[in-house]
């Protein structure tokens, strides 16, 4: 007995000592760090910044007499000033001029003073920080304040290249400007960037391109906010100081994100219109590392301007205490290097100088350069999209309890009943079919037994096929909650800059779901494709994840930057489509548009920023005739009537989320708590809404939207092709003008100029 107890305490002592020693040694190692990469010999940056006689950049606008032609093509003339590297684009057809600097006509009235006035004339603005000092804050710099100068101004045939040198902060940024048949392109050449001691955060190249102050003319900034929104030119706007700055394709959760409550930018597009002179800008390359920055008049200077803000580093909040939430801000170490960073400015003809014209340019770009083929021939009736909820889970006593909403058998009778309403063009998305229901991710197959299992699903799908109804299975591979699919969160989880595995708390009752590394989920999806096929599914509906989430992955096993993630998702979607014949996604970023056949639950709303004056269906104008789309589920609408009218205005097809007629009480379900799912409560409404939508949209399913405008407050007109107009009246009173009468809270279809 005594012998044993002595050995215990001995073991204890040795272990503690050993651990302490190891810890000490480890800490010493951390401090000494013999294996860390030898510091790359800092290039003697200072030596690179001898002006060599180049004149320092002068304040003020460039002298317009010094501009000389550097390139010309059929449409445009590119003029540039060697002293400032500012340029002008002249549209040969109309003679209108786009400047890369503020309009000299109004420069005398500029309200900005001092540094910012200088910034407004600088061809490039950058933001940097001293990353070695935690307390330093970022600095915005233009050429003038930095005693900057130009280097190596060269013409290239289609334009010019130049390098901007910032001697004070020791940066060199090479850029390129070129004209093409229908656009002018500005480009930052990442490979040539020189950095000294300081860290580059972001670059705005020719920020004031096409900028105009509000001088009483009609004009607006187009933002890719939600489905699209306009900031109309106005003097004395509300809360002038506010600007718009959002990351293209959404926030990167691996970094710090300021909560702006705004919708994700799904389209790398923005535009500006002043009078009948307008351009639309597409961020054609490197958009994963770009923000859209807009400063309406009064925010920064009196001009309205909007530009691409190229990101090189992002802020990160490093927390050090879990109890107090204390921490400090830091920045990513190496800068993001993109293969290319190009913004294209498409000048618009005067008769196309509105947001419909801008959408047309973007649509053409998608068709010709992104390979997004138009819908082509469609069925006679418009489609109706039904999301059937299989099951979900809620917090139980020891384990989560399973809540059944629709078994595969009930799904068959649901589809039969809806089909029985005379709706022939149906598409079904079955969600929550996986093991343990909708809120469980990982190990999707086989279909949960409590719903009917694989065989039940097969029966349901073949029944649906007998009616000609395609069935998609809903899945979200970007989360894992149960460790199935061989997923181990430590090894396969998405990690942020600090190496922490990211988690999402969707419902406070539920344990956090782990984000999966993109390269890991790509493997999982590929492995599951055969299973989908064997069930007879027509495709996968990728919900809320693939096509939406673009997060840098710092997991050393699966390292991927935003560009890589976009590439992974695109190829994954393409391969799935090849295997299964079709894939769809909801409210997807537009890089996913090629492979997907339908955009589900596309946003139809904006972010309610006070500076936004109007919400427009920009995304819908781009998409109609390219892809089918729906807005939010009809039975989740805040205001049934108005939002139905909006779906008519926006050319969207109806969509419902439904359950069988005997669902469990889903009130406390983690995800599918939706107000009212029982399909028996909705059949009348579905029949009515479908009928009315069909009446309005069936004839124009494959047509593009060519115009969209406000006829009167609360009265909107959408034009398809040349002779098909839909006028929607949101008002409580009848609208009547020019021989067109639209009853209150209703719409009218006008074909070939007469009311039909």
């Amino acid at each position, binding site marked *: 007995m005594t012998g044993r107890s002595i050995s*215990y305490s001995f*073991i*204890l002592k040795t272990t503690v000592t050993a*651990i*302490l020693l190891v810890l000490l040694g480890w*800490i010493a190692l*951390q401090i000494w760090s013999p294996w860390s990469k030898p510091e790359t010999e800092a290039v003697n940056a200072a030596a690179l910044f001898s002006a060599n006689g180049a004149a320092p950049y002068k304040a003020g606008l460039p002298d317009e007499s010094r501009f000389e032609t550097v390139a010309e093509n059929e449409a445009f003339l590119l003029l540039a000033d060697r002293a400032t590297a500012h340029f002008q684009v002249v549209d040969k057809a109309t003679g209108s001029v786009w400047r890369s600097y503020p309009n000299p006509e109004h420069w005398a009235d500029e309200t900005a003073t001092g540094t910012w006035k200088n910034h407004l004339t600088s061809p490039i603005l950058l933001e940097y920080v001293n990353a070695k000092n*935690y307390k330093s804050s970022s600095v915005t710099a233009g050429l003038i304040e930095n005693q900057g100068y130009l280097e190596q101004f060269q013409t290239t045939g289609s334009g010019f290249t130049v390098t901007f040198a910032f001697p004070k902060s020791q940066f060199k940024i090479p850029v390129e400007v070129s004209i093409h048949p229908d656009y002018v392109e500005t480009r930052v050449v990442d490979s040539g960037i020189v950095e000294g001691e300081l860290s580059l955060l972001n670059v705005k190249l020719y920020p004031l391109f096409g900028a105009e102050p509000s001088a009483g003319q009609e004009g607006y900034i187009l933002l890719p906010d939600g489905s699209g929104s306009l900031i109309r030119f106005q003097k*004395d706007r509300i*809360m002038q100081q*506010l600007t718009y700055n959002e990351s293209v394709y959404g926030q990167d*959760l691996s*970094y*710090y*994100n*300021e*909560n*702006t*409550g*705004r*919708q994700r930018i799904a389209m790398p597009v923005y535009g500006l219109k002043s009078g009948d002179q307008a351009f639309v800008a597409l961020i054609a390359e490197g958009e994963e590392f770009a923000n859209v920055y807009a400063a309406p008049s009064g925010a920064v200077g009196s001009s309205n301007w909007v530009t691409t803000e190229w990101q090189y580093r992002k802020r990160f*909040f*490093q*927390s*050090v*205490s*879990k109890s107090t*939430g204390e921490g400090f801000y830091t920045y990513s170490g190496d800068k993001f290097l993109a293969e290319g960073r190009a913004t294209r400015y498409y000048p618009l003809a005067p008769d196309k100088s509105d947001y419909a014209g801008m959408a047309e340019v973007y649509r053409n770009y998608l068709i010709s350069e992104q390979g997004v083929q138009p819908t082509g021939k469609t069925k006679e009736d418009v489609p109706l999209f039904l999301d059937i909820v299989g099951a979900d889970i809620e917090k139980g*006593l020891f384990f989560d309890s399973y809540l059944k909403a629709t078994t595969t058998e009930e799904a068959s009778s649901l589809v039969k009943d809806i089909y029985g309403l005379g709706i022939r063009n149906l598409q079904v998305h079955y969600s929550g079919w996986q093991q343990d229901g909708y809120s469980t991710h990982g190990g999707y197959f086989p279909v949960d037994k409590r719903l009917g299992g694989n065989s039940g699903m097969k029966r349901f799908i073949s029944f649906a096929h007998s009616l000609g109804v395609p069935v998609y299975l809903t899945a979200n591979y970007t989360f894992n909650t149960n460790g199935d699919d061989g997923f181990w969160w*430590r090894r396969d989880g998405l990690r*942020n800059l*600090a190496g*922490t*595995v*990211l*988690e*999402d708390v969707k419902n*406070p009752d539920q344990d*956090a779901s782990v984000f999966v590394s993109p390269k890991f989920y790509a493997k999982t999806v590929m492995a599951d494709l055969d299973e989908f096929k064997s069930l007879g599914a027509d495709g996968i509906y990728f919900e*809320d994840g693939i096509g939406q989430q673009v997060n840098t992955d710092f997991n050393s096993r699966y390292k991927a930057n935003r560009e890589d993630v976009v590439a992974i998702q695109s190829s994954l979607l393409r391969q799935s489509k090849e295997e299964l014949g079709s894939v769809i996604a*909801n409210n997807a970023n537009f890089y996913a548009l090629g492979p997907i056949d339908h955009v589900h639950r*596309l946003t*139809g*709303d904006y*972010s*309610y*920023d*006070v500076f*936004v004056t109007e919400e427009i269906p920009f995304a819908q104008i781009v998409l109609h005739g390219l892809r089918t789309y729906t807005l939010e589920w009809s*039975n989740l*609408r*805040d*205001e*049934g009537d*108005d939002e139905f009218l909006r779906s008519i205005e926006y050319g969207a097809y109806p969509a419902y989320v439904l359950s069988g007629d005997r669902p469990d009480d889903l*009130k406390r379900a983690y995800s599918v*708590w939706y*107000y*009212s799912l029982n399909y028996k*409560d909705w059949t009348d409404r579905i029949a009515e809404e479908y009928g009315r939508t069909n009446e309005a949209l069936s004839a124009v399913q494959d047509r593009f939207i060519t115009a969209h405008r406000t006829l009167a407050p609360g009265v909107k007109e959408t034009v398809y092709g040349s002779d098909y107009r839909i006028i929607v009246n949101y008002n409580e009173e009848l609208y009547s003008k020019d021989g067109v009468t639209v009853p209150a809270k209703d719409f009218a279809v006008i074909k070939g100029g007469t009311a039909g």
Partner: protein
Amino acid sequence: MGGNRLKNRRLRIVPLTIAIMAAIYAAWPSLQAFASQLPYDTYYKDGFGQLVKTQAAYIPAGIIGYNVEIPAEEGAASPEKSEGPAKVLLNQPKDLFVDGKDNVYIADTGNNRIVQLDENGQYVREISVSESPLNKPSGVFVDKQGDIYIADTGNNRVVRLNAEGKLLKEFGRPESGYLPESFKYDPVNLVVDKRGFLYITTLGAYQGLVQLDPEGSFIGFFGPNRVAFTLFDAFKRFVYTREMYQRELKKLPGAIANSTIDKDGFIYTVTKEIASGQIKKLNIAGLDQLDGKGDFAALQDERTYGETIHHWQRGVNPQLSDITVDASGNMTVVDSIWNMISQYDLNGNLLFFWGGDDITATSKTGVVKTPAAIAGNSKGELLVLDGTNNLIQVLRPSRFGALVHEANALTQEGRYEESEPLWEEVYRLNANYTPALIGLAKAAYKKEDYKRAEELFYKAGVVGGYSESFWQNRLKWFQSHFGLLMNIVLAVGIVYLLWSRLSGKLLPKKGWGFRFRPRHSLPGRLKHVFYLIKHPVDGFYAIRYEGKAGVVSSLILLVLAIAAFGYMQSGTSFVFNPAVHVGVDLLPVTVQFVGIWLGWVVSNYLVSSLLRGEGRFRDVFFSSSYALFPIILIGIPVTLLSNALTLNELAIFSFLKLAIYIWIGLLFIWMVQGIHNYTFIEALFIILLSLLVLTMIVILIFIFISLSNELVNFFNSLYQEVIIR
């Protein structure tokens, strides 16, 4: 060993917890699941605190009061003519009033004026009372004739102007012996009733509203809040000396922050810095009309107003800063802490609440930064004054909101049948919205469809309504089964009579059958419990000295008692135990029960072994298990019975439950007496000591846990700092 485990624990815990933090920090902005989204979410919370998301009740309808153009002829008078038309810019406005014609009056405090806008938000005029200039006016009220009352805070007065803005009367600090010397007269807001009496909110006045008659003489304080006097206060008063007690932070009732008046003359007040009863609806006598009125009154002893969405918000109570009442009596309040707007019906039942996260990066249409005041107009719109952004956000009722208002108004007027189709529609749109269930239940009750009413009231979790419907159903059942019941009673009576006759003759007279006595068999030990309840002291004595109880028998009884306790918690009728509506989580309840019981066993053993008690540990353990027997004996039948009772028979149920507790209490006293061989008084003393020890054990455990948590946190921070910086 220990070191090893600690290390493992730390390594495992650290990344996980950071991950959670990171998720909270990083993932929040991404949680927007919906494609179409207002800048705020709308919720309903039932009496059990269950949060239900609903369709938006109000929709942003624009911004007024910002950069309002002053028409030319007015502008000509103003000096800054050069910059186009002059514009109204508010500066820290504090109050908002909408008159019967939807004119909007804004107390533009920072600019020492009142601004009047018309129903479309166009400029009408500004009032600054040139003959006696306003100084930081922070409240405005307009009566039926158009007379304007202004709480002119900077001048410590209230002024009454006629409709043209000419000064009619000043109300300075009233002269009255009833007004304490120390009372500070800083009027910040006021309402005026039909008689012309003024009810003035003064800054920090815990005495209530200052009530003045039209001539300005002091009538009294109106609607004061009461001080919450807790048991702990009573204890302090008992223990402390007079000086000490007075030196304690002065206990004052909450000061009324704002008030409003409705068309029927009810005066509504909101109070900050109190945890319940933040809204009061006072009649002319100053009595609160909301007390005990709500549908969930049975669940809540103390009614709280001002809702919160996230559970972590419960740490800081909402501070209601203003209230408005619409034509049908619905009250809407704004909370300046969490930036939430909550709407209640005329009886204080919650209808909706909504609010958005505070976003510093931008400002949104429909969301205020600092809600200073709220008012409603005749179109049912809500106007919320933003004291930081100096503007008014207008919210219009949505279709869903309007439908609920209409249905609820009918229900409150007692027109249940008319309300039914409307509630049906609400229910179709949102099956989880409890007011629709309540509305339908009331309609069903009115139509004497008690079965459906019972079902709906149960689903909604309304105890009173359920109990009444159940009573009706029970009555019906008794009526229809009366004959059968009487026959059964008769039959049982006859059988009993016959049996007692016959048994007397047939069975030989002997105690309890044959006495087989394999001294301490398990059945014998179990049976001992019946002896024990008849002769408690002897019974416990026998456990100590005759070995009448064993480990197995005690454990069986203990487990049975725990099971019975669990059954009582989960099986008691909804009427007496509303918690079953949301489902009782038996685990914590059981753990608590077992924990206290174990603590008792240990502490009693410790105390009595020090004080010459004769019981061994196992005796305490055995007898404490045996003493729980009443839970099984009475608890189960009472729980079964509860399902046949209604609130009318609450007394019976309470009495039976009380009986269990008293019996168990007595058994424990006798137990201590019996096994330790104490007198009755000694036993009481020992029990008291044991409880004291038990409390100490609990406190020690608590301290230990929180300290070790701190330690883990400390090491975690240290690790983070060393690694990262």
